[in-house]
């Protein structure tokens, strides 16, 4: 394969020298493991759906079992991936400007796709909001809980930025403190959301099937909650690596990308509160 050999001296720098399998150059089991785990989530969901049809084709536990197993496999894949690609040899790996720029722009492009993900569900809400309003008896939307939660999440963006600035100044103590505070704020936010769901579902009887506003409310807050949780996982990984002594003023790309994600989720929340919480209460003909 003469045409291929000619590229071999092109100065390929390998993504990771040490990986699993070892020493094969551009090869790794982790993406494959991660993909099988990720696909398993969908297969598990599919099996659950089939079993829930009461057709007797599958035992009821097959779906959840595959799903849980796949979550494990997925996490193992991600762990190995992050470890070999970013964590091991942290201080000696190549930090060419191009590499970190690529990761940052990769995050920007991904956030662009997230905009579209949220956009579709918001479009549903705008569709029904343009009709007769309110379409049903609305739950008690604008209370102290949502205001406190909003304040917490906005504050967490500031603490995260404070942490980010700190590592740029090599202030490790402040960096770690900022990350911990951000994560605590995020965790309290998620707890607040769970509390709100509990209030609505158990005390007010406002569930996901309670009408056309319920679909918008649980669809949007659920999607957002999922994103906050994922953001917390990303920040958790950053925190663990920070506690292990990684990051410096010159090496903090994943702090940047995780921050971008967190700030994005924060901005979506502000939009969501204005449009979905306040927007549902304000301006309705019957409100």
């Amino acid at each position, binding site marked *: 394969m003469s045409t291929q050999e000619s590229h071999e001296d092109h100065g390929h720098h390998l993504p990771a020298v040490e990986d699993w399998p070892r020493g094969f150059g551009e090869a790794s089991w982790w993406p494959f493991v991660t*993909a099988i785990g990720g696909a398993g989530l969908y297969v598990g969901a599919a099996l659950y759906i089939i079993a829930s049809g009461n057709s007797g084709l599958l035992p009821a536990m097959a779906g959840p079992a595959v799903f849980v197993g796949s979550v494990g496999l997925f996490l193992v894949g991600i762990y190995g991936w992050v470890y070999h690609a970013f964590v091991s040899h942290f201080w000696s790996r190549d930090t060419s400007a191009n590499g970190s720029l690529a990761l940052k722009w990769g995050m920007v492009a991904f956030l662009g796709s997230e905009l579209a993900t949220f956009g*579709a569900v918001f479009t549903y809400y705008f569709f029904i909001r343009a009709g007769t309003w309110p379409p049903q008896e609305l739950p008690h939307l604008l209370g102290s809980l949502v205001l406190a939660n909003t304040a917490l999440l906005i504050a967490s963006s500031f603490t995260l930025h404070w942490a980010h600035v700190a590592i740029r100044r090599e202030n490790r103590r402040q960096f770690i403190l900022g990350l911990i505070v951000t994560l605590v704020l995020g965790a309290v936010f998620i707890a607040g959301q769970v509390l709100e769901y509990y209030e609505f579902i158990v005390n007010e009887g406002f569930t996901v099937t309670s009408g056309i506003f*319920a679909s918008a409310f649980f669809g949007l807050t659920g999607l957002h909650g999922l994103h906050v949780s994922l953001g917390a996982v990303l920040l958790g990984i950053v925190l663990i690596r920070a506690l292990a002594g990684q990051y410096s003023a010159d090496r903090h790309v994943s702090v940047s990308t995780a921050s971008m994600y967190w700030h994005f989720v924060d901005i979506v929340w502000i939009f969501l509160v204005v449009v979905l919480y306040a927007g549902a209460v304000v301006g309705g003909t019957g409100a």
Partner: protein
Amino acid sequence: MTQTKPSTPVVRWLTTLDHRDIGVLYVVFGAIAGLWGATDAMAVRTELLSPGLAVWDAATYNAFFTTHGLTMLFFFATPVAFGLANYVVPLLVGADDMAFPRVNAVAFWLLPPALLLARAGIVGQLLGIPHLAPPTTGWTFYPPLSTQQAGHGVDLVLLGLHLSGVSTIASSVNVVVTIAIARDESVSWASLDMFSWTMLTTAGLVIFAFPVLGSAMLMLLSDRLVGTTFFAVEGGGPMLWQHLFWFFGHPEVYILVLPAMGIVSHVLPRFAGRRLFGFRSVVYSTLAIGALAFGVWAHHMFATGMDPRLRISFMAVTLAIAVPSAVKTFNWIATLWHGAIRLTVPMLFCVAAVGNFVLGGVTGVFLASIPVDLVLHDTYYVVGHFHFLLVGTIVFGLFAGGYYWFPLLTGRWFDRGLARAHFYLSAFGIPVTFLPFLLVGMAGLPRRVAAYPPEFALLHYVATFGAYVLGVGQLLFVWNALSSAVRGEPVETTDPWELDRTGQRTPEWASGAETE
């Protein structure tokens, strides 16, 4: 580069992060899915040999055209385009690899399970379990049909397509960053090649179009399983689905056609011995198509009774998008003008792709105008129009690229005689199959119905004959590709197409070679 090779081929292919390996995996996967989708097409055409229900019952027929559409769009055309891009774009832009080699691998490995989920209905079909039978809604999944269809066929397809969407978005992020950031310093925006431009635009469209479909599919799934009201009549209504679906669906058309246009723009000048005429205007027309692609979706909904003022604006933008498309066509033709044309196999496919694009494009301009669309909507005319583009232009463009880069991908030559036979059978099969579609459509025959009035039998015979010819042609291709990859004549040079003669060698053919 010194590296020990993995112990077995299986380990090598499962663990590879090399963009060239992953490109080959994509192309092979796409070809397999394409054959599966082609089998569906043959089943559809076979039923249409007789006006009544002779071979399949109506539900089976409906399932076949549903799975045919979604297999071809999501698992054949997109993966093959991204596979070729994976292989050659890093070489063209002077990147070491794709920007994120691991994301590249994970994106590929999500596709086979996605295909199996989306096509799991075949199990129900073969074992006769109605519960698992494939959906019969058409690939567009319009509610209320899709929310009310019993069984789990629809659910499985929605899950599979969502997974394939995750994969496509991941590889698109990769393509964008590879071209925008990971380029070699020597490759400026001004010297970026045409294929990379089109892939950049395509990937950008994917990033904003596919997530909308992903969300919409999960909302539909939730309507089916949980009882939400996203697309229920009292909630967002069936029109919301159509808006969200086509906000994805129309950019998807350009997501598919732009890579093929890029291949034609890349390959055609090399066998005309001339530079691509008006290179800049082709770049700008690509970007214009990318921008306008998001403003035309409601032309799929002219017959739904939407606000006429909205309708007219979508008609205007749709007609406007014909302009950059025509710019490309005239540039290709002008490139051939006074060229030293070499009718190699890739060139044959390029020229035929341009010809088919004219037919498919002009029929599209008619559909873009509201009064004509109201007459032709949901007839075979529409099916004929988009098959001239999807098969005649996109698949031909992909074949042009496939043959052009075959020596690069395999290090061997394909059998030129078989390849020409493949071309002539395909080029003959396209009009014989799809011109009758236009005719029966203009006579008012609705699409997606298994039975039809006997007066259309002759034209349907002709179309089915053409489809069989097309099918035989593709079998020749499969045989040629497989046998040549193993036993073909080895390529001894880094310039198999003799591009140096006209000074048109591009970097994928050898490192350090002169660039355009």
